[in-house]
């Protein structure tokens, strides 16, 4: 390994583990559409500490990607969108900043990796141009230093022959390689928070795990906080410290990943886990599918959003929106929050 750049070491020491990095409070992202207002994110609160990894899982339309983009500040209030609530990144309110100020946040503070690596790269620019641009712009490096740093970044994301790759165009690389380049770009200014929005969905099965493991390794090495947005529960387990399960714009359940997977409290997370075919189950095992489909977000049901599909739903679920709370506060202070009137508690929990 090459010696880390002075910028990197200085920053790393400043990131004492446990510092609160991201505070999201009652975030609402409402899109004004022809069919009415759609609250894609509807009252989400999150905390993320430096170096921590958070998984956000949910089905399409659950608001997980919009949440990621709103945290980033890519989705902001405008003619078609209203963002309320607050996103504080290292003490700065992302949505109170001017677009110009916000641009300075992107790169050194927060960076993003998108689903499709081909559309994240400019097809007529070489890989080298993609990587040196942020380095020269944000860190004021000269051409030569930026190029050396770029090659080093490619090496860090596991790309062989980095110097040769710098002279290639995106189309000359495979999908997995392109996603590595996109990750290298996101890392170039050494962000404190990396938001990865479905980083492996467009990739081949044999490559997905490598990319996920790469992100986990980089997060640990750089002490970088990661938000991993995914529809794939398997991608999140074992790679994130905590997980938030989203349903119809709201957080249904959140806790340490292992705990949510072992003892889900919300009927939705439990059903979601049960609906995935298990490799070690015998063939032709009947899957416990969730009947129905997610609600129309332009007119969500008045009570719990999951109530129409929930086997445990009662009258109160159809009228009253459940708050995120811990149904059995643990003595060690770790909170297992679920937004459910009738969480799945075992006998001993009661």
């Amino acid at each position, binding site marked *: 390994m090459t010696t880390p750049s002075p910028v990197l070491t200085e920053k790393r020491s400043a990131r004492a583990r446990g510092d609160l990095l991201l505070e999201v409070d009652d975030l609402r992202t409402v899109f004004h559409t022809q069919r009415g207002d759609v609250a894609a994110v509807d009252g989400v609160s999150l905390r993320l500490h430096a170096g921590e990894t958070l998984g956000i899982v949910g089905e399409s339309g659950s608001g997980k990607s919009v949440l990621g983009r709103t945290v980033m500040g890519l989705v902001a209030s405008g003619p078609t969108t209203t963002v309320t609530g607050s996103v504080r990144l290292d003490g700065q309110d992302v949505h109170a900043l001017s677009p110009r100020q916000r641009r300075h946040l992107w790169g050194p503070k927060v960076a993003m990796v998108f689903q499709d690596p081909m559309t994240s790269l400019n097809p007529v620019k070489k890989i080298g141009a993609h990587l040196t641009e942020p380095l020269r712009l944000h860190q004021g490096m000269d051409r030569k230093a930026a190029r050396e740093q770029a090659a080093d970044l490619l090496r860090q994301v596991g790309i062989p022959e980095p110097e040769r790759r710098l002279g290639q165009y995106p189309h000359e690389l495979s999908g997995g390689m392109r996603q590595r380049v996109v990750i290298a770009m996101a890392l170039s200014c050494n962000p404190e928070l990396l938001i990865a929005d479905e980083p492996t969905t467009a990739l081949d099965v044999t490559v997905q795990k490598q990319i996920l493991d790469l992100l986990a390794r980089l997060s640990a090495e750089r002490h970088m906080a990661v938000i991993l947005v995914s529809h794939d529960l398997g991608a999140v387990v074992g790679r994130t410290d905590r997980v938030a399960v989203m349903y119809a714009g709201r957080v249904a359940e959140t806790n340490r990943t292992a705990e949510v997977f072992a003892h889900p409290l919300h009927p939705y997370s439990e059903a979601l886990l049960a609906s995935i075919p298990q490799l070690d*189950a015998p063939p032709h095992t009947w899957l416990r599918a969730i009947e129905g489909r997610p609600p129309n977000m332009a007119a969500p049901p008045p009570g719990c959003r999951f109530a129409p599909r929930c086997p445990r739903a009662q009258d109160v679920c159809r009228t009253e929106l459940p708050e995120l709370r811990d149904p059995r506060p643990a003595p060690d202070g770790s909170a297992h929050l679920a937004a459910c009137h009738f969480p799945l508690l075992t006998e001993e929990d009661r």
Partner: protein
Amino acid sequence: MTAQDVVRPDQAVEPVLDVQDLVVEFPVGRTEKVHAVSGLDLHLMPGETLGILGESGCGKSTAGRAMMQLPSPTAGSVRFDGHELTGLPPRTLRRRRARMQMIMQDPISSLNPRRKVKDLVAEGLSIWGFDSSLHGGKDKDTVVRELLEAVGLEPDVVWDRRPHELSGGQCQRVCIARALMMRPRVMICDEPVSSLDVSVQAQILNLLEETKERFDLSMVFIAHDVSVVKNISDRVMVLYLGKACEVVPSDGMHVTSVHPYTRMLLASIPGERTEADPEESTVLDTSVRATELPSPLNPPSGCRFRTRCPLATELCAQEEPRLREIAPGHLVACHHVAQGVQA
């Protein structure tokens, strides 16, 4: 590799679909060609589900389409219900093929957006002429209604709707109803759930399992997700660059499969993160190079997997491994697994 090598589970019963030495090549430019499928043998017994597993570009979809003659394979034979399908004039082919139906990956784009659900489902009947004797003397609307109910759709609700008014899962149900209309014997499902959400995926998988029993179908199920394929299939064929590496009974395949490629697919399931992965500490240089799928324009000599295989030797470059049986119904094409090498 000949069909005789492939021992059938029950010699007395004729397979409903018998594919021998299937080759599909697409010309590229003047001289080159893509070797999409190179000499594939498979058979499908009545009532059986055969899973075809592989990553993108391995030829699994091309193989499925070639069985449907969409387009016809470059060489090889496809026998459906005892009749050869290749080389037939179009009219005869369409007639013979009517009882083999296909479910595609993207349910929305495989339905005509201008047509209503009732017409979409009845389309097969309109083409072939409605024969009420085939449907127990019922009229056409009743048959359509029954099928919609069978796939879990409310006939009164969806009757006059068009595809854009339905969700992806509902569209896939319409596609299944459409396919069932022709009373098929074989259904070829090409990634039928990969464009659907997790919770809907389980609904469709259950539905396929249910309709298979109810309508006495045999199924070819093509997908890239190991757990999904394993769950629905009786046997699983693993394809790599247009060739079969392994055919394994799905029960316990996560333990019994031996081909290095199958092991690699199993190891790359994201959830199965191995503790203290030795690769993790070292930068992934070697494994990165190894994940590049070789070009199907010019596949490697000998064993096609050798460029990514941890067990590859000189022999693999020189000689192509043949599929041979290592346990009843379990075939492997690898030079090295016989020596007791378990990846």
